[in-house]
C-alpha cells in the first residue's frame, strides 16, 4: 500500500482545497490519469495519478483543505508501478514541503557525480590526421584512393582534387572511372596516344619531384668519407644512419621543415629518417622513427623490417609519413656522386654512393682506402653553406671512426 501525499503545487503554497475528485475508492487508475482538481491560492490545478494501481483510500472529501505533504490518496500498486517501486528508480520529488518545485516532476537520482572534467587542454600538434578538401575526400572514396598515401599539394599540405586524381590506381575497371572523372572534371587532360599512364609510387614520384623542382633552392655539396678504419663485417647502412644522427646533433638546421609563406622553419627534436628503397613498383620511401634513440641492433632490425615490407608490398601508409631527413643509399647499385632531390617541406637529403677502394695519398705514401662518396643536397632558402658543410664534416668524422 502506497500513500501519495499532496505535492508542492508550486511557489511553496502551503495547502490546497479539494474541488472535485475524478476517481473514487476501488477504481483502477493508470499513470497520469486525471485524479483530482484542487484549488490553490493561485488557480485550480489538476493532479494526475503518479502510479498505476487501485485507489484504496481518499484521505479528504470535496471542500476539504489538505496541507502540502499530507496524505491525499492511498494506492495498491499494480503493473509497472509495482515493479518500479524499488528505491533505485527515479523518485518523484513531490512530498517534502521544502522541495520547491512547481507542478510537475523533477527527476532525482541517488547519483554522486565524480568530476572528470579538464579545463582546456593545451593544443598539441595534429597527428597523422589527413587534411583534405571535402570534394577530394568524396572523390577518394569513389576512386578507392587511400588518402593517407596521397601527398597534398594545397596550402599547408592539404590534399586537393588533383592530388587524388594523380594517386588513383588504374587497374582496368577503375581506369575507366578515373578517365571518365578526368574527362568531366578536368576537360582535356586525357592521353589517347597509347602512353602508359603512371600509377602508384611512380605517379607519386612524378608529383613530388615536380614539386621539388618548383620549390626547392637546390644546392649539393660532395665529399668522401674515409672508412678504412672499419673492421670486417661493419654494417654499412647502420653506420650511415648513425652518422646522420650525429650530424643532426651538430647542425639541427638540416633536420627541419621549411614554410616559404612565413618564411618560417621548425627544427624537429626527433629524427625520423626516410630511407629510399628501389622496388619493382618504383621508388618507395618508408620511415624509420627516432633513429637517434635506437641502438645499432635496433636500427638493423628496422632496416630489415623495412626491406621486407617493401618486398612484400606491405608498407603501411603511416610508415611513410612524418619523416624529417632522407637517406638515399644508391651506392649498392652503381654511381658515386649525385644530386639527390629534396621534397618539400623537408630541407635536406643525403645520397651515398658506392663504397670502394680509392687510391689516396697520405703523408707516408700512396694507400688504398675504402671510401664512401657523399652527396648532401640542401634547400638553400633556409640552410646556409656553412651549416651544410659543418653537417657534412660531422658525418665524415663519425663515419671515420672505427666503431
Amino acid at each position: 500500500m502506497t500513500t501519495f501525499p499532496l505535492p508542492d503545487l508550486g511557489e511553496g503554497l502551503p495547502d490546497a482545497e479539494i474541488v472535485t475528485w475524478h476517481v473514487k475508492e476501488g477504481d483502477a487508475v493508470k499513470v497520469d490519469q486525471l485524479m483530482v482538481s484542487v484549488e490553490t491560492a493561485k488557480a485550480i490545478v489538476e493532479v494526475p495519478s503518479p502510479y498505476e494501481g487501485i485507489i484504496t483510500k481518499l484521505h479528504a472529501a470535496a471542500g476539504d483543505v489538505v496541507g502540502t505533504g499530507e496524505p491525499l490518496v492511498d494506492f495498491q500498486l499494480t503493473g509497472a508501478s509495482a515493479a518500479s517501486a524499488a528505491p533505485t528508480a527515479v523518485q518523484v520529488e513531490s512530498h517534502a514541503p521544502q522541495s520547491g518545485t512547481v507542478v510537475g516532476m523533477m527527476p532525482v537520482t541517488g547519483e554522486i557525480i565524480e568530476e572528470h572534467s579538464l579545463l582546456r587542454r593545451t593544443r598539441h600538434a595534429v597527428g597523422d590526421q589527413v587534411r583534405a578538401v571535402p570534394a577530394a575526400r568524396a572523390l577518394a572514396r569513389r576512386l578507392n584512393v587511400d588518402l593517407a598515401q596521397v601527398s597534398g599539394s594545397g596550402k599547408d599540405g592539404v590534399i586537393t582534387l588533383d592530388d587524388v586524381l594523380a594517386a588513383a590506381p588504374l587497374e582496368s575497371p577503375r581506369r575507366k572511372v578515373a578517365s571518365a572523372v578526368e574527362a568531366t572534371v578536368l576537360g582535356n587532360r586525357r592521353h589517347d596516344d597509347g602512353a602508359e599512364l603512371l600509377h602508384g609510387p611512380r605517379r607519386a614520384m612524378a608529383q613530388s619531384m615536380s614539386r621539388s623542382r618548383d620549390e626547392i633552392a637546390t644546392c649539393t655539396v660532395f665529399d668522401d668519407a674515409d672508412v678504412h678504419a672499419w673492421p670486417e663485417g661493419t654494417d654499412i647502412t647502420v653506420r650511415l644512419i648513425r652518422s646522420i644522427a650525429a650530424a643532426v646533433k651538430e647542425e639541427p638546421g638540416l633536420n627541419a621543415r621549411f614554410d616559404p609563406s612565413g618564411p618560417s622553419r621548425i627544427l624537429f627534436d626527433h629524427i625520423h629518417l626516410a630511407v629510399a628503397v628501389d622496388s619493382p613498383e618504383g621508388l618507395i620511401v618508408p620511415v624509420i622513427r627516432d633513429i637517434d634513440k635506437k641502438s645499432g641492433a635496433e636500427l638493423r632490425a628496422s632496416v630489415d623490417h623495412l626491406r621486407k615490407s617493401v618486398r612484400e608490398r606491405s608498407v603501411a601508409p603511416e610508415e611513410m609519413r612524418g619523416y624529417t631527413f632522407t637517406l638515399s643509399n644508391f651506392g649498392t647499385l652503381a654511381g658515386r656522386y649525385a644530386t639527390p632531390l629534396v621534397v618539400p617541406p623537408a630541407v635536406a637529403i643525403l645520397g651515398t654512393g658506392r663504397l670502394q677502394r680509392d687510391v689516396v695519398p697520405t703523408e707516408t705514401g700512396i694507400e688504398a682506402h675504402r671510401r664512401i662518396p657523399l652527396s648532401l643536397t640542401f634547400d638553400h632558402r633556409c640552410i646556409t653553406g656553412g651549416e651544410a658543410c659543418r653537417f657534412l664534416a660531422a658525418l665524415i668524422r663519425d663515419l671515420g671512426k672505427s666503431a
Partner: protein
Amino acid sequence: MAQITMIEAITMAHAWELEHDPSVVLLGEDIGINGGVFRATAGLQQRFGSERVQDTPLAEGMIAGMCVGMAAQGLKPVAEIQFMGFIYPAIDQIVNHMSRMRNRTRGRMSCPVVIRTPHGGGIRSPEHHSESVEALFAHIPGIRVVCPSTPARAYGLLLAAIRDPDPVLFLEPVRIYRYAKQEVANDGRALPLDVCFLLREGTDVTIVTWGAMTVETLKAATQLAAEGISAEVIDLATISPIDSEAILESVARTGRLVIVHEAARNCGVGAEIAAIVAEQGLYDLQAPIQRVTGYDTVMPYFKLEHDYLPSVARIVDAVHATFVD
C-alpha cells in the same frame, strides 16, 4: 566537504558573495521570504536581511531596469527571472542598456549584473516554463551567456559571473537542479569564464553540448564506447563567447563533430558552432557536421516533452551518421 545538488551549490555561491562582497544584492520574485520557487535562495533573506535579498513585484522589465540602475550606482545586482520564459519583458533593459553600458560610456562604466534563470524543460511544467532561448542572447554583443552542467561548475561559474564587471545571463538547467549530487568545497574559488570543459576524452568524434543535455550526451558516449566508438564530450559552459579554439583543436584530432542542444534547431547556437568549424576546420572534417536539437515547434506539454528533448538514441544516431563510410 558536503555532497550537494546544483540548487544547493547555487545557494552556496550566493551566500559566499553576499558575505564577502557588500555590494552584492539579490532581487527577484519570491526569492526572499520564500527562498525562490526552486529554493535557490533559501535562507538567504533570513541571514542577510531584506535589503540585501529583495522580493520584487511580478514585473520582469522592472527587475531588469532596477539592475541597470543599481549597477550604475555601484551595486552588484544578481537578479532571478523565475523562468526563462518570463524573460522577454526584460529584453529591452538587457539589450538596450545592460549590454551597452560599457560601450555607451566609452568604458567609464560597466554593468556588473547577473541575471539567473531556470533554463530548459523536462520537469512537466506548464506553458512558458520550459524555454531555452539562449540563442537570442548569444546574438547580442556585450552580454555573456553561461550555462553550468554540474553542481561544482554551477558554484564556480556563478561566482565568476557575479565577480565579472560585465553582464552575464546565467542559465540554470532546471532538469538537473537536483538530479545528482557532487562534492563542492565552499572555498569561494571561481571557475574561468569563456572556456570549455572537457568531460570525456575521445578520439573518434567530438560532441559539443551544454546544460542538462550533458547528461544524455555522456550516456550516449558510454553506449558508443561499447560499440567501439570513442567520443570526446565537451561542455561548452560559456555559450557566448564560444571557446572556438578548444572545439577546433578537438575536431582536428577526431575529424567528426556532433552538436547537441535542447533548444530549437533553426538559428540555434549549434548553427554558429557549425559555421565556425566549417570556416576554420573544414579540412579536418571527415564527415558533415551533425546537430541534434529540439524541434522547431513550441515546447510541448509534458506528455510530449520527452519526444521533443534530444534523447540518447538520437545522439547515438547522429554520431553514426558521421561515419558515412
